[in-house]
């Protein structure tokens, strides 16, 4: 399984062509039992690969992602290619435009090999809410790969692509990256354009990279980051050179361990793996301090008010009239809405729509929504205070390793609790990366590094430094 660096070296030495690499990855996708993809894009991929080969033959400079097979979560639009958001309600939908992140990745030479499976409208932590079947964890087919970027994570881990694009609203890049043993990065909110990302929670959604190594994630982030005037929430902060700064090391870096992330509910074996990583970072010159984020205990509750509220608004457009699918004919408009939305939305989508409708309704708005927004202010203030004492927070990404398929399906609340360590980062708008730090019972463990706003460079440096002391990223699932 190639990294971007290895792939580009092979191309440069003419050991292999972009078309040959693309064919290999398309074949791996076709042979897979993981159900990581909803739509395969072989024509687009081979045309792009031929273009890279022709460019190279002419002696043109190759882009940073030239020849790199890239999978794209099916919540990102690609013009003319079916984009479903993992939902029946968008079955058959062919968008009229391509998402900015895909445009930028393709402009850098990436080869889009397919649209990956995901929880419906990016709502879920296991991949089990997809209308297109579950995705399996490459390390153990009976376990979940995590969600909502389930296919994007599984595909990278299983070698069905070199890197992928996902979206992270409550942990949906980091958690599946952790459960699948790969690197996943959630940028600062506003760092990467949301244009073309089918909206779920507009104030929290973040597109981001998933890859086998920290360097690969940095390269992909570099290609997609930056202001986009077509996304009003995209911010005009200068983009660092993420790859040049990777090797800076961690001498003098101040790490914080927030006690709230190491308490009850954390599997002790996961904790041991994380503390092992902390020891490596200390050995490399970082200092470690215990810190506290008291308002963090309200993060999940705030999230499950704010997220459904915005979901109820963002999913109101799915009326069966203008795009996607329509349910069996209603006699009038009202019936058409009721039937389309009732029949074509999955259970989680309906639950969150109704929750949002409830907490935003007159009489409940102050008690729930206003309170949640205020909690968000308090949580952000806690992080700001802690970041005046430390540079990077180190935590487990998830409380446990990949759980069995079906084990949390009956209890939405149990599923929500899987995100307890990732959600606070979204509520505070911060960047964070998950990378492998060990295995427990043959299943990967994820280490989460949380950074200051706009400081993706520092968390990538710390991640890179730790990664260099281990070989977790070279391990490959059996039968993948």
């Amino acid at each position: 399984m190639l990294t971007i660096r290895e792939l580009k070296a092979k191309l440069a030495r003419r050991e292999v062509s972009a078309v040959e690499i693309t064919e290999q990855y398309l074949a791996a996708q076709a042979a897979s039992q993981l159900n990581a993809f909803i739509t395969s894009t072989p024509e687009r991929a081979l045309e792009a690969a031929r273009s890279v080969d022709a460019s190279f033959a002419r002696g043109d400079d190759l882009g940073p992602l030239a020849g790199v097979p890239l999978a794209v979560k099916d919540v990102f639009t690609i013009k003319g290619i079916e984009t479903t958001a993992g939902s029946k309600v968008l079955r058959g939908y062919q968008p009229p435009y391509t998402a900015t992140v895909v445009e930028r990745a393709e402009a850098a030479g990436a080869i889009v090999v397919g649209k990956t499976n995901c929880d419906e409208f990016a709502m879920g932590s296991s991949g089990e809410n997809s209308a297109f079947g579950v995705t399996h964890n490459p390390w153990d087919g009976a376990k979940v790969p995590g969600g909502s970027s389930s296919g994007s994570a599984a595909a990278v881990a299983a070698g069905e692509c070199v890197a992928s694009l996902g979206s992270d609203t409550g942990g949906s890049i980091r958690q599946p990256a952790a459960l699948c043993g790969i690197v996943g990065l959630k940028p600062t909110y506003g760092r990467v354009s949301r244009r073309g990302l089918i909206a779920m929670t507009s104030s929290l959604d973040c597109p981001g990279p998933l890859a086998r190594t920290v360097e690969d994630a940095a390269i992909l982030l570099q290609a997609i980051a930056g202001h986009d005037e077509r996304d009003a929430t995209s911010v005009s902060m200068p983009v660092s050179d993420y790859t040049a700064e990777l090797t800076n090391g961690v001498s003098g870096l101040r790490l914080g361990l927030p006690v709230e992330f190491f308490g009850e509910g954390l599997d002790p074996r996961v904790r041991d793996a994380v503390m092992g990583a902390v020891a490596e970072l200390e050995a490399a010159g970082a200092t470690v301090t215990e810190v506290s984020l008291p308002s963090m205990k309200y993060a999940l509750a705030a999230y499950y008010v704010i997220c459904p509220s915005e979901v109820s608004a963002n999913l109101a457009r799915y009326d069966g009239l203008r795009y996607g699918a329509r349910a069996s004919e209603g006699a009038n408009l009202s019936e058409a809405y009721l039937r389309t939305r009732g029949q074509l939305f999955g259970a989680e989508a309906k639950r969150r729509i109704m929750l949002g409708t409830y907490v935003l309704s007159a009489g409940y708005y102050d008690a729930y929504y206003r309170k949640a927004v205020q909690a968000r202010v308090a949580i952000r203030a806690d992080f700001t205070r802690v970041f005046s004492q430390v540079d990077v927070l180190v935590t487990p990404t998830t409380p446990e390793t990949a759980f069995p398929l079906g084990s949390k399906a009956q209890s939405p609340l149990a599923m929500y609790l899987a995100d307890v360590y990732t959600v606070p980062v979204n509520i505070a708008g911060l960047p964070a990366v998950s990378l492998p730090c060990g295995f427990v019972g043959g299943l990967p463990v994820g280490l989460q590094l949380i950074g200051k706003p706009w400081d993706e460079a520092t968390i990538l440096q710390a991640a890179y430094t730790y990664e260099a002391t281990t070989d977790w990223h070279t391990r490959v699932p059996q039968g993948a």
Partner: protein
Amino acid sequence: MALSQEDVLHLAALARLELTPDEVELYQKQLGDVLSYVAQLQELDTRSTAMPQAATPLRTDKVELFFEPGRLVAAAPEHDDSFVVVPPVFGESR
């Protein structure tokens, strides 16, 4: 925070979701569980917390034509050459 069946049916109607009786019963329980969980937000003292102000920058109002209106119509589940076909606004329920 317990929801009644009427509450669930009311929410479903507001959100234009037609639910089966089994769904109503299931969601009643599941939504009640989530609302009980998020109720802990009440413990937070937010008396001195200001609501955040949005700071979205504005751009110039410049007209750009979208040059492929046909694609938009073609995306509809039912359409003719230029129009999206929809059920009648007023029609007898079956």
